[in-house]
């Protein structure tokens, strides 16, 4: 038995173990609880990194739960794959790495951030369940399991958003998220059911191999794209997102960013690997592109007028998701056109995928920094802040790095991914680049405002007692700063090792289907 073969199962088993151990371990005091929170999320990150390395070396990893052999997808005599199948290609592995880093950083941050509050046993449990749901969405190869993992993640996040249940705003945000997301996942289940009714299969690769584009498939596609675009916070359905991000505890906001990326992953998986060349015309790609443009523009214009710091960052999430939708939508548009793909489509996809990594890291970092400010001062309104750079030098430094990265200032990583998107979507239509550039300028404007009002200026008398936040929170932010700086200093390594295999895997529909339908590896 080789441990490396079982990494996809371990990736889910480790956080699940943590979630169910948490209520017991928390009986034995604070130290053990922190050890559990940090230890389990660190091990999850380690497993994710190992899985990513394995997939890069050995190609797509398939894992069958409950079978005679871990990679026997088609037992003899079966025409369709059975049992619970996990399928990890380079794109999934990339997403898993992003998600688990965010989860680790959020866990480190939460050890100090949450210690003043009661009910932390439940917090730790829900936190690991949310991690589990997110990772499950990223590696599952099965529609119904995707629905299950969406629901695990959703239920855990309702609880976490409304964790401070004595705050009316938090409960309201949790309820709003719960209502919207519950309707969405039911619509997703209808789409999965109708695909099952037609093709007798739930496995994505099996459906992909048989798919013929008809009326029913169109309806299912619209249902899935609508639901998952809502879950990742794209424009017309973004209303829940700033509320939920702003009201959740900061460590959770950091993880929620990664969870919304898991929905984006599902959207791309369905569009590229399931429908792929059968996508039938350019309607869906253009729909995704226009959703991206609208999210970018309206997200950032809403963000500029905000004066509550976490809400402002939440609206920026809407606009940043737009970049990824734009990049990947352009890739989808030229999927059947080999020349367009080689000239600009693949660059756009690389930009979109690199932006997923960058966005998860710097947006998580911004939320953590905002949480650190709230922890130290008890204030969330920008109008009441000022001169914090003197009191909190480390937080200030890390906030500046994240703000520069999100605004796309060279040489930060946000600049690299945005540049890839600008130069490639220009080939489709110059107007796309104009909107993207405008969004970037407004993003910079709004973060200059935040930095100037919160950290610069004369020292306020109410803040004389403010001190730098405890080390756990600094380490949590440090992990993400390290990731941002790593992608900044080694862009070519990141692009060729992390991003390009993911983009190639996403385009390679036959490879994704063949790994399951080819009768094991």
């Amino acid at each position, binding site marked *: 038995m080789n441990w490396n073969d079982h990494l996809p199962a371990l990736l889910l088993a480790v956080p699940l173990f943590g979630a169910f151990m948490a209520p017991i371990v928390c009986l034995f005091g604070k130290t053990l609880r922190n050890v559990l929170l940090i230890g389990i999320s660190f091990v999850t990150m380690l497993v994710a990194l190992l899985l990513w390395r394995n997939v890069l070396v050995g190609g797509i990893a398939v894992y069958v739960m409950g079978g005679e052999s871990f990679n026997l997808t088609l037992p003899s005599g079966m025409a369709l794959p059975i049992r619970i199948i996990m399928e990890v290609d380079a794109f999934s592995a990339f997403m898993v790495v992003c998600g688990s880093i965010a989860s680790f950083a959020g866990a480190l941050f939460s050890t100090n951030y949450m210690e003043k509050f009661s009910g932390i046993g439940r917090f730790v449990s829900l936190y690991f369940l949310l991690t589990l749901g997110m990772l499950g969405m990223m590696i599952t190869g099965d529609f119904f399991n995707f629905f299950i993992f969406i629901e695990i993640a959703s239920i855990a996040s309702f609880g976490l958003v409304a964790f401070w249940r004595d705050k009316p705003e938090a409960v309201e945000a949790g309820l709003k998220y719960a209502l919207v997301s519950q309707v969405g996942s*039911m619509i997703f289940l209808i789409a999965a*059911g109708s695909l099952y009714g037609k093709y007798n299969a739930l496995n994505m690769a099996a459906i992909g191999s048989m798919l013929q584009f008809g009326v029913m498939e169109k309806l299912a596609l619209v249902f899935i794209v609508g639901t998952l675009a809502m879950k990742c916070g794209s424009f017309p359905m973004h209303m829940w997102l700033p509320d939920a991000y702003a009201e959740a505890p900061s460590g959770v906001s950091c993880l929620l960013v990664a969870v919304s990326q898991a929905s984006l992953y599902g959207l791309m998986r369905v569009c590229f690997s399931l429908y792929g060349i059968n996508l039938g015309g350019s309607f869906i790609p253009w729909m995704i592109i226009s959703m991206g443009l609208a999210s970018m523009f309206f997200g950032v214009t809403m963000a500029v007028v905000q004066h509550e710091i976490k809400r402002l960052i939440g609206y920026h999430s809407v606009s940043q998701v737009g970049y990824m939708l734009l990049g990947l939508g352009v890739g989808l548009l030229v999927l059947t056109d080999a020349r367009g793909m080689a000239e600009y489509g693949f660059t756009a996809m690389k930009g979109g995928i690199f932006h997923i990594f960058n966005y998860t890291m710097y947006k998580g970092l911004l939320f953590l920094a905002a949480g650190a400010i709230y922890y130290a001062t008890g204030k969330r309104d920008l109008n009441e802040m000022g001169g914090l750079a003197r009191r909190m030098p480390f937080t200030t430094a890390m906030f500046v790095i994240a703000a520069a990265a999100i605004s796309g200032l060279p040489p930060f990583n946000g600049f690299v991914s945005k540049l890839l998107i600008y130069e490639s979507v220009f080939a489709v239509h110059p107007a796309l680049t104009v909107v993207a550039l405008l969004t970037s300028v407004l993003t910079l404007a709004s973060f200059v405002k935040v930095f100037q009002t919160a950290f610069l200026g004369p020292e306020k008398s109410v803040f004389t007692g403010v001190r730098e936040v405890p080390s756990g929170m600094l380490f949590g932010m440090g992990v993400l700063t390290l990731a941002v700086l790593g992608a900044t200093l080694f862009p070519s390594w990141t692009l060729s090792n992390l991003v390009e295999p993911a983009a190639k895997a996403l385009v390679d529909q036959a490879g994704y289907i063949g790994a399951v339908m080819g009768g094991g590896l």
Partner: protein
Amino acid sequence: MIGNAPFFVVGLLFLAGLVAIFMEKNLIKIAVAISIISSAVNLFLVALGYRAGGTIPVHYLAGEETLMVLPTPQAMTLTAIVIALATTALLLSLIMLVYRLYGTLDVDEIRRLRG
């Protein structure tokens, strides 16, 4: 035509739930509407797996019959019911907290998060 009757019922239930979510002002009624939507989806899954005249999908209990209903949608429905139960419970408890904090269940008055 009559074979498709379950699907018409599913469509009607789903639309009824969706309309109620948008039209109703009371949070409890909205939670009920979401439950109706879940039931519609579960009904849809069960109806998908039904074969006219089929028996239970267990080999040693089905006897001589070879036509069975599909087992997978039934398993899916069971799972979906459990999930719907969990979310309904969570929704209702959140609504309870909202009532405690705001003193009302009217969606038009629960609006502290705006802009």
